């Protein structure tokens, strides 16, 4: 049992892959390296599938790709409206990144989203984007004013939300993926044959995609709140 705990801890620990010898040594964690791999996979797949796009007579593959991208695009467009159009590519990127991160465990990599640094970074970017979209849409004054809505009484709550929202985004993603990872490790230890497949379907695919969906959905929802004129 001790052995297992040790191994689990080793699995959970984000190892330092290498250290950049400046500023007293910057440690590069495994999650960053896996992120590079994910980036490479996403870009390669993107280039492969968009190689031969035709305006007229598109093939079945292109139609599938188009309906997928357009479906995701319209999903965000419905939430954000026309004013938030410019943020859609970012949200699509994050959705793809988180989705693939959560599923990459099946290829033997440690999911980057299991590292709290990654989720902190994503949540930080989300909250910056949320507030920036508000400033962009209403100007600094209008943005500050939005904290008094609907009444001045809940201004403290609105200000707290600036911190609570990214924290909840970050922790939700981190906790879910970490929990799923730990459970999967336990199941693998218990019955290494057959059973993990079933649970992997749930924890890696379903939960992974749901978490990606929830993350970008909430981000876009908060953004639409800020973009919306009173």
């Amino acid at each position, binding site marked *: 049992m001790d052995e297992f705990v040790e191994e689990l801890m080793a699995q959970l620990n984000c190892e330092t892959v290498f250290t950049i010898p400046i500023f007293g040594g910057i440690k590069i964690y495994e999650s*960053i390296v896996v992120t590079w791999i994910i980036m490479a996979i996403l870009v390669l797949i993107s280039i492969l599938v968009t190689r031969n796009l035709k305006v007229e007579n598109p093939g079945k593959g292109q139609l599938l790709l188009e309906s997928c991208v357009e479906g995701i695009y319209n999903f965000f467009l419905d939430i954000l409206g026309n004013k938030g159009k410019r943020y859609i590519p970012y949200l*699509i990127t994050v959705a793809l*990144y988180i989705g693939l991160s959560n599923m990459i465990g099946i290829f033997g990599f440690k999911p980057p989203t299991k590292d709290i640094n990654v989720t902190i*970074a994503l949540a*930080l970017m989300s909250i910056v984007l949320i507030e920036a979209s508000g400033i962009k849409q209403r100007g600094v004054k209008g943005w500050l004013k939005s904290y008094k809505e609907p009444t001045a009484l809940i201004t403290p709550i609105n200000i707290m939300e600036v911190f609570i929202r990214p924290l909840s985004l970050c922790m939700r993603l981190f906790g879910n993926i970490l929990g799923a990872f730990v459970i999967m490790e336990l199941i693998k230890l218990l019955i290494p044959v057959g059973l993990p497949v079933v649970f992997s379907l749930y924890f890696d695919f379903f939960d992974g995609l749901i978490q990606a969906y929830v993350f970008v959905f909430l981000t876009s929802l908060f953004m639409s709140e800020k973009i919306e004129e009173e």
Partner: protein
Amino acid sequence: MLNIDFWNIAFLIINIIILYLLMKKFLVKPVMGVIAKRQELIDSKMNEALMTQEEADSKKAEYEEKLVNAHSEAKEIIETARTQAQAEKKEILDGARLESEQIKEKAKQEIQIEREKAQHEVEAEVTQLAMIAARKILKAGGVNDTDSNK
């Protein structure tokens, strides 16, 4: 797992930004561009079709009007021809009647003249015959008278 490290967060943010730019360039832009282009194509074709249809409709109306005009024109032409023919017919008939009347009149006159001429001739002949007869009688009577007188 839980060691929060500033540099890693910063690197990840940079990574995500790079990934965002790459995905925008390689995935979203091409696909949405193709979709937008197709939409444009469909719109332009649709407009074209609508315009062609409108044109065809107006042409059809024009031709229908022309057809109606042609019909009425034809009717008019026929009508004028008919009245003209009627008038001509009447004129010809009238002319013919007049001519026949004239011919008849002339014939009557001629007959009259002939008759008168014949009458004169007969009268002259009768006179001549009477004269001959009278002369004969006179001649014969003279002989007889002499005979008897003898």
